[in-house]
């Protein structure tokens, strides 16, 4: 499966130590716009399979990660490269804009 649930305990391995760029979607079940973003992120995961890693952080379950990266509004999407955040989006993003942002850093 290309789409990964990321938690506090898997963040280091999946995101910080990844040799590919990682797109992380910060979301929650009670956030309406996040429900719209979810299926789009899943499509991005499918299309970018092998080229980039795509994961989702549930802010209810991992408030520490949200706090660490200054997430104060969801959906927030952050692209990490080499363990560092290189691009951040706030609000629902289209598949095209996410893929083109990932393509730039591959």
């Amino acid at each position, binding site marked *: 499966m290309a789409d990964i649930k990321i938690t506090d305990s898997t963040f280091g391995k999946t995101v910080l130590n990844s040799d590919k760029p990682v797109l992380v979607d910060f979301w929650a079940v009670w956030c*309406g*716009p996040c429900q719209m973003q979810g299926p789009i992120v899943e499509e991005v995961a499918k299309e970018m399979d092998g080229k980039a890693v795509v994961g989702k952080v549930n802010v209810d379950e991992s408030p520490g990660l949200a706090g660490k990266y200054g997430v*104060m509004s969801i959906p*927030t999407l952050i692209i990490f490269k080499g363990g560092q955040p290189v691009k951040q989006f706030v609000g*629902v993003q289209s598949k*095209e804009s996410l893929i083109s942002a990932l393509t730039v850093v591959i």
Partner: protein
Amino acid sequence: MYDVIIIGSGPAGYTAAIYTARAYLKTLLIAGPQFGGQLTKTTTIDNFPGFSKGIMGPTLMEEMKQQAVRFGTEVVMDEIKTITKTSPFTVTGSKGYQGKTIIIATGAQAKTLGIASEEQFRGKGISYCATCDGFFFKGKTIAVFGGGDTAMEEATFLTKFASKIIIVHRREEFRASKIMIEKAKNDPKISFLLSKTVKEFYGNTVLRGVKFEDGTDLPLDGAFIAIGHTPATAFLKDTLTLDEKGYVKVTNTVTSVPGIFAAGDCVDSRYRQAVVAAGMGCMAAMDAEKWLEGKK
């Protein structure tokens, strides 16, 4: 070439799509930056007929989308920048789409104060969606800017998370209904700050507070902007006749350009209800269908 291109993914857009796709018209629906429209920012909707126990806004919108897709509507996400003036139309966002008719259902979006520091702290303490972002302000001090029902409702909702909420309004009186004002006034977490105009927001990486025109200052962890809505029609000003507030001028759903129809909150400054928008979406679909038949 599509028979109908619908721009907008709220109740007006999806209802129009259900009608045109079900009438075997080749239909494309283009969803903008706020996929699903304003209802995706709400919680329970109690006044949409057919749901006796209420329904969650995002759920209702997903159902409408599935219903439109079931009849063959194609849905894409793009932000449209221009539309040509004669049928067949080309609408252009990140790429171009061709359609014989267009239904504008772009709705309305939350108004911004329009100052540079507001954009700087967007998502870093400044929010336009209490249901989305209230969670991040547990035990914090926040302000809600505005004087209408939305401001009162958001402030009341935010008492679930924040320890202190200040409703900041630029006038002495409120536009909000009495019942909403009373509810806010009776809440021990909510206080009021009146006749204050925002000069600028300040902070470092996150919001720390706001400075007012009168020289006073209010330290804050978060700011929710609830100063009303404005029709999402700026991209149409060279194509269609708009009124002085930016709403698309229509007769029924017919705009100033033959073959372009409009429905929902982008034409309606008066009712602004999901069920009204859905009704107008149906009207626009039937008007577009009739217009296409007249062309044959």
